[in-house]
């Protein structure tokens, strides 16, 4: 849909020059450029965290998804327009009452350990995600309505639901719900974390903690996803997946050719790579909630809609993005990331300090203290924002928002925290605003992150998945209805209304679509993103060297 990639004219031109240079090469290696060349090792350097477990059924975060997309596959494939295609499933049938879905698995598929794919494998995988002992996070939240799985016949599994769930097939096309070998899953969790076994084009060979994971080609690969450029085994023999947390070192490693692909490409490096003919840039927007600053409407001052609106009006996001991200990211204009189906561009917030001042006056924040901070009944207009490196929003962006908000009288207090302290502050509702994102290939993400069920503080540690504390029965009913209908037009309309409630209530300030940002050596050919979560796949990739 709104897939963004930045193919650089300079690279294209230089690639052409390279081709013509090869053509006139007396050694006669010209033909190699056009046909994929099998073999070789690709080194990928990730700046994301090292996954805690290589099996994304345990936990369920982005670093795991990046890696697992190379060796695990799902029942369904979601294309760039959000349509569902078969993958490890051959077909599906939704029951008339919507309370069960029959899934027929593809024929003659075996896992890389030789175990055949059958209906029982589907049952084992889904029930394992639901089992609390697996400690699944994202997968389990996605399967909240699943009550169990029945094996109807050797190739047909029936997924039973407590309520109709139109997002189920979308959920089953994300890599946090992969289908793994039941034989391998019978091992203890820790063993499966080290070497999960799926049907993917690569298999996990070894994991040297804090250094790298080595993947090798699956020679018997038979299940290329829709949109793949070839069939059969992958071209690359090996992928070395290195953990290089430092952005400068990571980009230097790419420039020097020590690695072939890097992720979390920094804005200044993206600009540098665009002018370097030996490098290429690939940026794709991920679905779900964009990177946004969510406002806690559960306590003062943001329990007042006028103050929320004033804060959003006072934040000069465009200037901050331009100066920090150097034009390499676009401002998000929607509550759902632009690559999410049913996303509506209705969050057209613009910088308007005059309006912010007027709203704060109306809301009773009329006096100012000696620091120029507005006060009401002696309380200063303070906005506490804990920030952590877990969320890819540069501190400089927060600082610029802090500066523009100050001009209308907000005292924005940025509190840098380490990972653990940040989650605790978040779960304790000890913030007024918080930068966060959520990756999910379905508008159903609204149910997880804005439904009133997601903001209860009854659980230990006040866990919540709804950071805005939005509690609106109309909203809850809209997302529930949307989940219950499979009619595309109705679903689109319901999700549109739901997004409008969030925008009209000024609950969140979308900043930019979360992205997979890659820098590649330009001789890395045949790269593409898997559309469901915009994760990279190296199945068609080959090294033109």
């Amino acid at each position, binding site marked *: 849909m709104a897939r963004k990639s930045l193919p650089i004219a300079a690279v294209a031109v230089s690639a052409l020059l390279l081709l013509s240079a090869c053509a006139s090469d007396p050694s006669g290696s010209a033909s190699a450029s056009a046909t994929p060349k099998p073999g070789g090792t690709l080194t990928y*350097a990730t700046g*994301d*965290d090292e996954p*805690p*477990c290589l099996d994304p059924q345990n*936990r*369920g*975060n*982005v*670093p*795991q*998804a990046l890696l697992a997309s190379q060796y695990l596959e799902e029942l369904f494939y979601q294309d760039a327009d959000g349509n569902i295609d078969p993958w490890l499933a051959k077909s599906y049938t939704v029951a008339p009452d919507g309370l069960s879905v029959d899934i027929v698995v593809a024929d003659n598929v075996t896992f890389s350990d030789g175990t055949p794919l059958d209906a029982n494998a589907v049952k084992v995988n889904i029930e394992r995600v639901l089992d*609390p*002992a697996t*400690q*699944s*996070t*994202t997968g*389990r*939240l996605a399967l909240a309505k699943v009550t169990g799985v029945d094996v109807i016949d050797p190739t047909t599994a029936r997924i039973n639901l407590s309520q109709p769930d139109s997002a189920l097939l979308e959920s089953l096309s994300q890599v946090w719900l992969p289908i793994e070998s039941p034989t391998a899953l019978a091992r203890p*969790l*820790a063993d499966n974390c080290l070497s999960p076994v799926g049907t993917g084009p690569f298999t996990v060979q070894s994991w*040297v*903690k*804090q*250094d790298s994971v080595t993947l090798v080609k699956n020679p018997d690969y038979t299940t290329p996803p829709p949109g793949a450029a070839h069939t059969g085994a992958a071209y690359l023999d090996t992928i070395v997946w*290195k*953990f*290089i*947390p*430092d952005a*400068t*070192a*990571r980009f*230097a*490693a790419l*420039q*020097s050719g*020590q*690695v072939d692909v890097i992720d979390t490409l920094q804005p200044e490096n993206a600009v540098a790579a665009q002018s370097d003919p030996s490098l290429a840039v690939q940026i794709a927007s991920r679905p*779900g909630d964009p990177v946004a600053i969510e406002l806690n409407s559960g306590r003062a001052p943001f329990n007042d809609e006028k103050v929320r609106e004033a804060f959003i009006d006072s934040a000069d996001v465009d200037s901050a993005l331009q100066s920090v991200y150097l034009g390499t990211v676009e401002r998000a204009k929607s509550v759902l990331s632009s690559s999410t189906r049913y996303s509506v561009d209705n969050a057209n917030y613009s910088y308007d300090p005059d309006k912010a001042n007027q709203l704060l006056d109306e809301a009773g924040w009329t006096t100012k203290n000696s620091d120029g901070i507005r006060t009401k009944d002696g309380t200063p207009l303070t906005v506490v924002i804990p920030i952590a490196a*877990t*969320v*890819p929003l540069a501190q400089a962006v927060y600082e610029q928002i802090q500066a523009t908000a100050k001009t209308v009288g907000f005292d924005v207090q940025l509190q840098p*925290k*380490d*990972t*653990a*302290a940040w*989650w*605790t*502050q978040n*779960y304790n509702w000890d913030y007024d605003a918080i930068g966060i994102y*959520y990756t999910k290939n379905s508008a159903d993400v609204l149910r*997880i*992150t804005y439904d009133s069920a997601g903001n209860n503080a009854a*659980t*230990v*540690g006040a*866990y919540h998945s709804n950071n805005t504390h939005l509690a609106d029965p109309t909203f809850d009913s809209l997302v529930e209805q949307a989940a219950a209908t499979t009619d595309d037009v109705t679903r689109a309309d319901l999700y549109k209304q739901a997004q409008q409630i969030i925008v009209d209530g000024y609950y969140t300030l979308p900043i930019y679509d979360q992205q997979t940002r890659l820098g590649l050596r330009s001789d890395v050919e045949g790269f593409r993103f898997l559309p469901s979560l915009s994760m990279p796949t190296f199945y068609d990739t080959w090294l033109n060297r």
Partner: protein
Amino acid sequence: MTAVVALPSARRPLTAWRWVATRLAGAVFVLWAVATLTFFSIRLIPGDPAEAILGGPGSRATPEALAQVREQYGFNQPLFVQYLNEIGRLARGDFGTSYALKAPVTTVILEGAGNTLILAAVSLAVAWLIAIGLAVWATRGGRVSRAIATGLEIVSAAVPNFWLATIFILIFSIGLHWLPPVSAPGIPGLVLPVLTLAIPLAGFLGQVMRESLLNALDAPFTLSARARGESETGVTLKHALRHAALPGISLSGWAFGSLISGAVVVETVFARPGLGRSLLNAVLIRDIPVVIGVVMVVALVYIVVTLLTDLADRIADPRLRNP
């Protein structure tokens, strides 16, 4: 303590076994204190390990998974009970299992310790070479070279590791293409990390050594060496330097500790596996067994190095040897 620090008149030479026993008891006390301090400091700062373990980028935990993790690792027990469990395990020689890596802490440490110790030892040696070079140059050369050496010492002692590391990558990897920016097998991959650690340390050691080298070169024993017809190089190398090295040697114990803490930065920037990187990652998500394990290993190394510097002092300084 009072038993050891007796009046000089009452001093008896300790028998070898008593010396060993005292040292050993001291070491055990230090390790217990380190484990206890580490446990409480990491549990009393804000941050719930279960939330950190489950809340990865782009995702949220679930209440069920949180409950499961709290149950599994005993976070739902009173803090003091958790502490007793932890100490009990350690006393049995069991470092436990990493929450995040799901591997025994012993494995995590063994995988990282070799890399970190090599990095620290080579850095210490290189720092010594640079420091001696600077100190000798400063004292033997004229006023200008002394001023330059002093300036270099101050600057290098003041530069932070993380800045130096980035500058080195920009110059030697991106600019000159001489050395790999991230950890690579063999000597080339070790050069930048070692220089990053060694240069600030060399600044400290050099400052200390230059002072005592100057004193030593004016001391009566160097005068008598000169009187015996020893060359100026011979005086510096054989006599003065040996004297001047003493405070530096005593500092090496401290220096080794600072190298280990520097390794946290260097291993992260240059993407080298090692204890420093393990420690950083573990602290961020409150992976307590790993934090305690690494800190105890570092404390142990510290104890051993201090012992070695004591011995080195005795070898370099005859006055400390027993008659």
